[in-house]
């Protein structure tokens, strides 16, 4: 067992855990943050994506020990004071979900994608999101949501 201290969605947290446990399970089981999803546990689907010091990270293959002293943002930490983040807003407006199970990971990936590249082409969106699987909606709506998010985020800044 180890004590892991890290910041989650702006709040300092401390957990006692086996250091090898996946961050995904620490978030979901110890901290009750179930917005981060399990899809494969093998780094192939992106459902478990969180932002670790601002970078998209697959929490299913990230051991808890690696987040010692670092900052994690999960889907629960994205909307500020009840106002949706522009990326979340865009996913709603474009109906970019069916079951929505892949959505939190897609949203976080998009947040980071747009930070690096505020006006991505469709090709860049496809490359940027290719590590994420959606089994329901055929990807078009998600690409459209990312495009719309770029517009919404542009308006906001």
């Amino acid at each position, binding site marked *: 067992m180890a004590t892991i201290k890290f910041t989650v969605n702006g709040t300092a947290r401390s957990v006692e855990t086996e250091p090898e446990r996946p961050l995904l399970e620490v978030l979901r089981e110890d901290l009750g943050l179930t917005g981060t999803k399990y899809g494969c546990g093998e780094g192939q689907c992106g459902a478990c994506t969180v932002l670790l010091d601002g970078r998209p990270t697959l929490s299913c293959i990230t051991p808890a020990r690696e987040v010692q002293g670092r900052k994690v943002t999960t889907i629960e930490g994205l909307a500020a004071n009840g106002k949706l983040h522009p990326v979340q807003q865009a*996913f709603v407006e474009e109906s970019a979900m069916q079951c929505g199970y892949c959505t939190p990971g897609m949203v976080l990936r998009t947040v980071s994608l747009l930070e690096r590249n505020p006006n991505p082409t469709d090709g860049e969106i496809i490359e940027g999101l290719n590590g994420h699987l959606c089994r329901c909606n055929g*990807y078009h709506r998600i690409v459209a949501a990312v495009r719309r998010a770029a517009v919404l985020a542009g308006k906001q800044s």
Partner: protein
Amino acid sequence: MVDYALDRENAEPERYELREPPAHIFAVNRREFFGIAGAGLVIAAAAQQAAGQGSARSGALEARLHIGEDGTITVLSGKVEEGQGALTELTMAAAEELRVPLSQVRTLLCDTDRTPSDGITAGSRTTPGTVPGVRRAAAAARTLLLTTAARQFQVEATRLEVRDGAVTHGGRRYTYADLARSPELAAAYKNPPQGGALTPVKEWRILGKPQPRVDARDIVTGAHRYPSDIVRPGMLYGCVLRPPSYGATLESVDLEAARKMPGVIAVRDGSFAGCAAPTSFAARKAVEAIAAGAKWKVAPHPSSDGLFEHLKKHASRDARPRGERGNVEQALAAAARRLKASFQVAYVQHAPMEPRAAVAEWHDGRLTVWTGTSNPFSVRQQLAEAFHIGTDRIRVIVPHFGGGFGGKHTGEAAVEAARLAREAGRPVKVCWTRAEEFMWAYFRPAALIEIEAGLDARNSLSAWEFANYNSGTAALGTPYRVANVRETFIPSDSPLRQGSYRCLAATANNFAREAFMDELAEAAGKDPLEFRLAHLDNERIKNVLTAAAERFGWAERRKKRRPGVGIGLACGTEKNSVVAAFCEVEVDRESGTPRLLEIVEAFECGAILNPVNLRSQVEGCIMMGLGPALREEILFRGGRLTNGRFRAYRVPRFRDLPKTEVILLDRKDLEPAGAGETPIIAVAPAIANAVFDATGTRVRSMPIRLPRR
């Protein structure tokens, strides 16, 4: 309220999972058995109270619709939401008929204690079956509110107007909330009128308009709790000991190693063994510890290499034709030309993004389960059998879950969680891993399809013999005009556990038929589109074919040739909807896997209820269909999958996205049909036909792969 019995007896033969014997029948727990006697009445009363708070309800409407004292409308349906859009569609249906904004309606989906059973959520039946039921109930409620208001206004009901959740007359106005509180309504509710007039399509204000998922906000914020997200006080996490291979049976297992671990409970009950612990990590470690010493009796199991020979060899000898007319033998003998081919379709896995999950909790001999299943009432039955208790002691709640596609008609995780929870005396959650979902969920049946057909002297189809081994009967019948036909489904011995998958066997049957129609068109020296149109009487199929052909530019593109690139088409009908797809593929001879560059798909399912969702369903079907068309194929050897991981079993990704155009034909004159399935059936054959166009090679198997160069 079950409009459509998809039960063991009536379901299509390929819904194999509905006829499986129970996986576990546990030993009787005598203490519990006596403990629960006599508790039923209390529970029934409590349940009624909980559902009936502060409202006018009773009689026939109560199962469906509920108007609260604050005017909030609650729709109750035993259907489930797995991403297909039932929640939004049913909410829209009620709002339309009650003339209220969508935000005033709350829809409560499957909770076996509170919602009526609407049967299994499958077969594209929510739209044609449940939506009309909800609309009728809502229309009846509207009539009731209207007549109650009329009595209070003391005017004729016909002179009143209903809009925005209120009944008005001149300047006076009663909101639904006012009416719901009136004792007259409560009295009238006991004898509700039989229906009220349904709003005609041309007067729709909500139905037919694009509507995003009503709970989209909860999804994008991560607030929605999927079955795998449910947490109960004191809950443990469970993990189940799996056999090392298909057919292996547990001979012995020593639980001591697990029981020594802090906070771990371990249980063996017949073929079942598993552990529960304070974290899923600890539960996995505990199961690893008992797995090390477990003894199994393994059974021989065939390999995917010899699959189609196996299916043929073990085919049933007494299958009768499902469709037969004319005399096929005579017609074949008399044909100017005869063609024969056989097609193969691999097993595939649904791979919904959320694997199976359940939380189970026992309280005073009563079991509550939260799980992701499309078949909740049957899962309740499964639990009742496994635990020897009445279904009245079991409550199954289905939170909106993460995808099913026909793959979640069973309750494995629920049974497992319930067994562990009974042992632990605490709630237990069981979430299957992706590896478990690949190996232990059921598969879409593999298919071997043999077709022989004859063309007469005028190059018209004169004979059609079609045999499907193992996969099923959906869309077995040809929609083309031909006088002499025999169509047979021949069950076989499936090496893998198999069952329903989006559109069932229609994908396999349509793949073989539409690919073969292309071969016949070629033999007849006809354009594939003309050849089809010449044999079609179904106007709806002709319409989608023509619409898609025009948008795609079929006639012009047939004239232009590009090396390594080909175009193809396919059409089909199933579940009272019709589809046509035209596509362009590029063939990379190095990898042998074609690439879909462009697809135009036209779809028609009667009057459109929610165009955004419909488009999303069609786009989703195209992308999902692309997987088994080009890459997906379950491989097994020695009773194990050899590619049961996303790394090895490639499902479609963003990079596979083709240029896509979806044409939705809105037939306001036709009853709405379901739309989540049929759009998948034209994808694979259109690709196969385009591959032939590009290469001159007929690929008669799914996945469609060319020999590598």
